[in-house]
């Protein structure tokens, strides 16, 4: 549905070639995801299928198709209304805002998305390959088209891989009506008929520099630097921000407004290591920085406990912390002039988050079956909704066809 931007890291991550290994069979991986938030908020049902086929000795093509439905309600960013403020936007497509007194503001929605990613890896020589990627994602209120190009160069002993790449995307954003509200526009302007514009669009450019290394027989490490610049419409056309009096009582509502430029940088490091008992640890840390004043740290740890052949249990913990964006305000002060940019989107608030879960893998019907169950807990410093709790369930099945 609505919102900002995306950068799905397709398996663009540098893949170390091990030995003279080549994908030599068609591989199909299919997955079902169920994501559900507490308090009847967002529910996502998603089906993904990913096919990878070698073409001769030097080429591999891949196709990834995603179909998902998102239903439920999500915070608009407005404060709990003490008195009922009756607002029905002509554009949200849902049933308007729930505005009963004391109820935090939510917008209901229901959307489906279809996404397709294609990839082509061509090996030019023993130690040099190119990865080409293209993607399309379509929703009623969001369209995205992207392409990427990544070079991977290995040293002659293949223990080091250097990667460099660029990617670009063009996204079109609107409410379901195909319109976008005037940023910082008063929701009740012109007796509830505020000014609307046409679709918004944004362009993003990304670059990657990476190195991955075989440290020893049981260890692989990786270090990536990415930089991304986005320009254009980055406002969420559904999000609102309340103007309140000194007592926190809502007086007015405005559509949010975000800057037209954003520069994001990440430093990502990962380590994979097999312990003496054949268990494997996956450790990663990401440092993120952008010019909206957001800094974040992400720590991820997976421990794969191997039982008998191909049966495993993989506990997982993810810790995340971010600072608030400079444009984040839980509400607008009625004594201050309207700022140019402001958003009460909880995702731009200061966040502390923990994910705990486990995955179970087993062989089945000549392939691999995996089940994953996780619990996500997020806490927000100032946002109207101060927590988000969700359950993630994923079932996947992968098989190779020779």
């Amino acid at each position, binding site marked *: 549905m609505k919102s900002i931007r995306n*950068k799905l890291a397709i398996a663009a991550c540098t893949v170390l070639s091990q030995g003279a290994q080549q994908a030599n069979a068609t591989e199909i991986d299919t997955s079902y995801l169920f994501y559900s938030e507490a308090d009847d908020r967002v529910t996502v049902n998603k089906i993904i299928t990913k096919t990878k086929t070698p073409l001769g000795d030097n080429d591999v093509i891949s196709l990834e198709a995603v179909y998902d439905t998102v239903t439920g309600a999500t915070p608009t960013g407005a404060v709990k209304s003490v008195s009922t403020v009756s607002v029905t936007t002509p554009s949200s497509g849902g049933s308007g805002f729930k505005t009963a007194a004391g109820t935090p503001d939510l917008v209901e929605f229901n959307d489906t998305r279809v996404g397709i990613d294609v990839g082509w890896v061509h090996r030019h020589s023993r130690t040099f390959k190119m990865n080409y990627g293209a*993607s399309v994602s379509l929703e009623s209120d969001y369209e995205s088209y992207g392409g990427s190009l990544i070079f991977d160069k290995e040293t002659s002993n293949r223990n080091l891989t250097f990667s460099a790449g660029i990617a670009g995307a063009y996204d079109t954003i609107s409410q379901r009506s195909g319109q976008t509200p005037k940023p910082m526009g008063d929701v009740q302007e012109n007796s509830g008929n505020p000014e609307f514009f046409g679709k918004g669009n944004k362009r993003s450019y990304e670059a990657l520099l990476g190195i991955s290394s075989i440290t020893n027989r049981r260890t692989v490490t990786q270090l990536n630097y990415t930089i991304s610049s986005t320009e254009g419409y980055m406002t969420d056309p559904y999000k609102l921000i309340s103007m309140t009096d000194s007592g926190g009582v809502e007086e007015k509502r405005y559509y949010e407004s975000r800057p037209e430029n954003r520069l994001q940088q*990440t430093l990502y490091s990962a380590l994979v290591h097999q312990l003496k008992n054949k268990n494997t640890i996956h450790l990663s840390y990401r440092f993120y920085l952008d010019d909206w004043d957001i800094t974040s740290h992400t720590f991820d740890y997976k421990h794969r406990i191997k039982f008998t052949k191909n049966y495993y249990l993989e506990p997982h913990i993810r810790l995340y912390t971010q600072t608030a964006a400079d444009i984040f305000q839980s509400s607008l002060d009625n004594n201050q002039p309207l700022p140019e940019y402001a958003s009460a989107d909880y995702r731009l608030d200061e966040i502390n988050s923990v994910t705990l879960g486990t995955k179970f893998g087993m062989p089945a019907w000549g392939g691999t079956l995996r089940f994953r169950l996780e619990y996500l807990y997020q806490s927000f410093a100032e946002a109207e909704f101060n927590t988000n709790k969700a359950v993630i369930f994923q079932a996947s099945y992968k098989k190779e066809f020779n």
Partner: protein
Amino acid sequence: MLLTTLQACAAFQTESVKPWQKGVLTEEAMQLDADPIESYVDDHIYFSKEASTGGRGIGGGGCGCN
């Protein structure tokens, strides 16, 4: 846990790995992205619930996921 930590220190002992010593490294569990479809889903979830994104790679499609 302590044992794991101690053992993990072995991860930092560098050696020049010969082509025939890469058997363990070819295992699925030893790939930097051991379960790409899971990473794809996670990237999506966290992209739509947090302000930061990216790191592992570039490219892929955008979405208006909420």
